[in-house]
């Protein structure tokens, strides 16, 4: 096998040094009755080219292998990825390094992630950002736990019903063993979180609002901050589309205490939902409560500037069961990708791309309305929106995928049973006017 370098002579010499006569002898500490009797039923190894054939067969069984058009998002977005990003991230010094525990030979990862932290704080208007988390859902669950642990009086967290359905489920999974509960804040007929319902909720430890919300609508975060302050509880915001903050007012400007987000849109491929990039940011006050790694700037013994992992005393390998979280590995390489993306698009690009997402989505909505879809909310949105489909669309949609590789909206029935026949559409900079007109023609 080409990954195993040991020659027969090597093995003999090494056995001699190890003081045994066979490799089997090295396993004598394992009692015989604990050794497996059956071997492993896994096929014989493939050559590189046999592997290629098999993998291409699998990959082409996904319709993503075709020349598709995605008019869907819901937490995973189709964006252009500049060629330099996959090229640079495949530098194996980045890819095959471990966590930068030896800073003298990890300055590349360390400076790169320090720059990532900086650009995320700029994007979100927050004081600090961690070196990444798994995804938005797990980052949001950690944020909910911070609010719950801090509040001794209440064991409930108020979460908007327009938070991504998977994220609400993850919060539930994470918090319920500790006896905590979620209370869901209902939504209004404008497709926004019902602030009046929230005002009436007593005995809550924190508020979590997603904006743009799962319907794509932009929440009025300012008003939620007022309620959080009145109740003296933490205000958490989240988002699934990071590019929205190339255009929208950032959560920091509304006084968010903690922000959890998904960074997949920042140059990371969809990859069937993962790995994406969990973003986690906070105010200065929350710096020591946030879970996961931080990179900080410092100097070496000769006075030269450098970077290290820092504030590690919050982490599991030091604090063990008293740690703020059990997170160890994060999604560092994808954080590096996001940094590369932000550096590539820069200040000019991020606004223009975000604006184009908005332009395309507005045009898509107008065009589909003309084609017989019904507008549901008249609320400002960012790159995603809901429409009620005309009769017969359900079958037409499947046909469109099968025959034209066009994905037209995500059916909301499984997530919001009350919205039967409603679809969540998305348009990004990757769909052209022509694509949109084509779609309208198909669904008419």
């Amino acid at each position, binding site marked *: 096998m080409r990954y195993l370098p040991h020659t027969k002579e090597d093995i003999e010499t090494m056995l001699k040094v190890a003081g045994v006569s066979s490799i089997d002898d090295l396993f004598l500490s394992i009692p015989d009755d604990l050794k*497996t009797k059956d071997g*492993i039923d896994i096929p014989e190894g493939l050559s590189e080219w046999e592997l290629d054939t098999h993998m291409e067969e699998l990959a082409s069984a996904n319709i993503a292998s075709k020349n598709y058009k995605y008019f869907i998002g819901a937490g995973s977005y189709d964006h252009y990825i500049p060629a330099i990003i996959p090229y640079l991230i495949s530098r194996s010094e980045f*890819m095959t390094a471990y966590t930068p525990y*030896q800073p003298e030979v990890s300055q590349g990862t360390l400076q790169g992630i320090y720059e990532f932290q900086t650009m995320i704080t700029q994007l979100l208007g927050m004081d600090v950002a961690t070196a990444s988390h798994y995804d938005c859902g797990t980052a949001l669950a950690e944020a909910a736990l911070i609010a719950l642990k801090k509040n001794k009086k209440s064991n409930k967290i108020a979460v908007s019903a327009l938070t991504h359905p998977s994220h609400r489920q*993850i919060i539930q999974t994470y918090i319920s063993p500790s006896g905590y509960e979620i209370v869901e804040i209902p939504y209004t007929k404008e497709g926004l979180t019902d602030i009046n319902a929230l005002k009436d909720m007593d005995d809550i430890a924190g508020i979590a609002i997603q904006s743009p919300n799962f319907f794509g609508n932009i929440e009025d975060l300012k008003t939620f901050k007022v309620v959080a302050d009145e109740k003296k509880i933490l205000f958490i915001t989240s988002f699934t589309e990071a590019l929205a903050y190339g255009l929208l007012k950032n959560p920091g400007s509304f006084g968010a205490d903690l922000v959890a987000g998904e960074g997949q849109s920042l140059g990371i491929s969809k990859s069937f939902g993962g790995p994406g990039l969990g973003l986690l940011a906070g105010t200065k006050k929350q710096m020591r409560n946030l879970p996961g790694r931080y990179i900080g700037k*410092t100097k*070496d013994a000769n006075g030269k500037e450098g970077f290290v992992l820092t504030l590690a005393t919050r982490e599991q390998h030091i604090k063990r069961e008293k740690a703020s979280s*059990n997170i160890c590995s994060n999604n560092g390489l994808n954080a590096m990708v996001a940094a590369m993306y932000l550096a590539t698009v820069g200040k000019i690009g991020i606004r223009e791309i975000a604006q184009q997402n908005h332009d395309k989505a507005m045009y898509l909505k107008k065009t589909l309305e003309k084609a017989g879809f019904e507008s549901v909310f008249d609320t400002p949105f960012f790159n995603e929106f809901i429409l009620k489909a005309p009769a017969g669309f359900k079958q037409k949609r499947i046909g469109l995928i099968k025959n034209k590789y066009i994905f037209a909206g995500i059916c909301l029935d499984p997530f919001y049973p009350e919205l039967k026949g409603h679809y969540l559409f998305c348009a990004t900079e990757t769909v052209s006017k022509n694509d949109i007109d084509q779609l309208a023609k198909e669904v008419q």
Partner: protein
Amino acid sequence: MIQQPGTSGLVLNEALLWDKSRDGRCAISLPKQDVDRATLDDSLTGDIPDLPQLSELDVVRHYTRLSQWNFGVDTGMYPLGSCTMKYNPKTNEVQAARKGFAEAHPLAGDEFSQGSLKLMYNLERYLAELTGFEAVTLQPAAGAHGELTGMLMMHAYFAKKGKQRSKIIIPDTAHGTNPASAALCGFEPINVKSGPDGILDPETIAAVMDEDTAGIMVTNPNTLGLFESNIKKIADIVHSKGGLVYGDGANMNAIMGIVKPGEIGIDVLHLNLHKTFSTPHGGGGPGSGPVAVGKRLEPFLPVPRVVKELDSYKFITDCPETIGKIHTFYGHFGIMVRAYAYILSMGAKGLLDTSRLAVLSANYIKESLKGTLNLPYDRPCMHECVFNDEIQQKNHITTVDMAKRLLDYGFHPPTIYFPLVVHGAFMVEPTESESKEDIDQFIDAVKAIAKEAKEDPEKLRKAPFLTKVTRLDEVTAARKPCLKG
């Protein structure tokens, strides 16, 4: 002495991104605007994030220079104990980048995602076969996330039995994430000491195991690189009190094809695809931490689960006892593709050989360096061996000094000061990927450093000399945190 890989060469300085920024530059060709501009209300739009403005070459040089300041497995030997820094095959990257995988939308629908589903199904089957369990979830995003998933399932199991338990036994040879993962589920860790031979004594467990204890978290082989020979007896003790045995499979690289944890009394086990199954560590992630379980815990697995019906595959969510979701979609699919490609490339024999050679190389290092470094537990090891600095302490040289000096010789240091049970630990895991010549260079380098420790200890205390920066002031970094520029 063998010529060592470490040398000095030209390394270029590189400013922070924003110091290179000039107004008006942009490294992307913006897509054409072919629809009308739609304005959002001013009350909703914010200032443009103050991102750097660079040309494409600026960005390319920036990250190329940064990468050159890093040391990776592709650069040289990376013998970090308990981290399994094996070679990350390049074909795995090619497979994960295939359009049909990389551009697959998670909500495209089962019918249009058959390739992804089949891959996940097959990978689950292979991992179940390797570990001797009934079922596997691929959803956890990392090893610690897998531990949390396992603990959540144990918690759900006791909830269903009608009586929750409050404690969990964790040996001193466990990974640091173990107690933190257990605590998230409300289990209070009961720390137990391993015996004088470095492994757990069943009587120690019998003394603390009771009907309020959920079970035990065991890393096997443990973090001393030793096989817990009494595991079956320990499992019997835990089971007799109605408890469950959690296996931390981070060290699975030692026992593939030799021991199936599901056959020796373990009830639930997590694997690290980024250790045993060759996916890159990426400077800290993303990893993937699948969890394997037996029949008893299967109903509690996270949803969705992949099932096969006739010749097609689908996700199911209708599992009434599931712990729920732990990832927004299905976990780190891109990592699964790489691990799957690895298993297929190795085949059954390749995987067995991997463990046998990983163990051979570790024992070769152990015997070669015994005497140069102190070996607190002198017995045959599995895939890693743990030394310490007891001999060098006489010259006031500590593990960290030797580790830093190893950088000058061109090696990434081993894991240091872990496991906690060994004072000044120096934990070496060569993996099966390193050739005998590279291992010999490493052994030679450690011997040379031990000699320097006697003859020129001051030099070691100031090492490293050839790296871009030398020892960094971590105390000030933590006291006055500067986390952004």
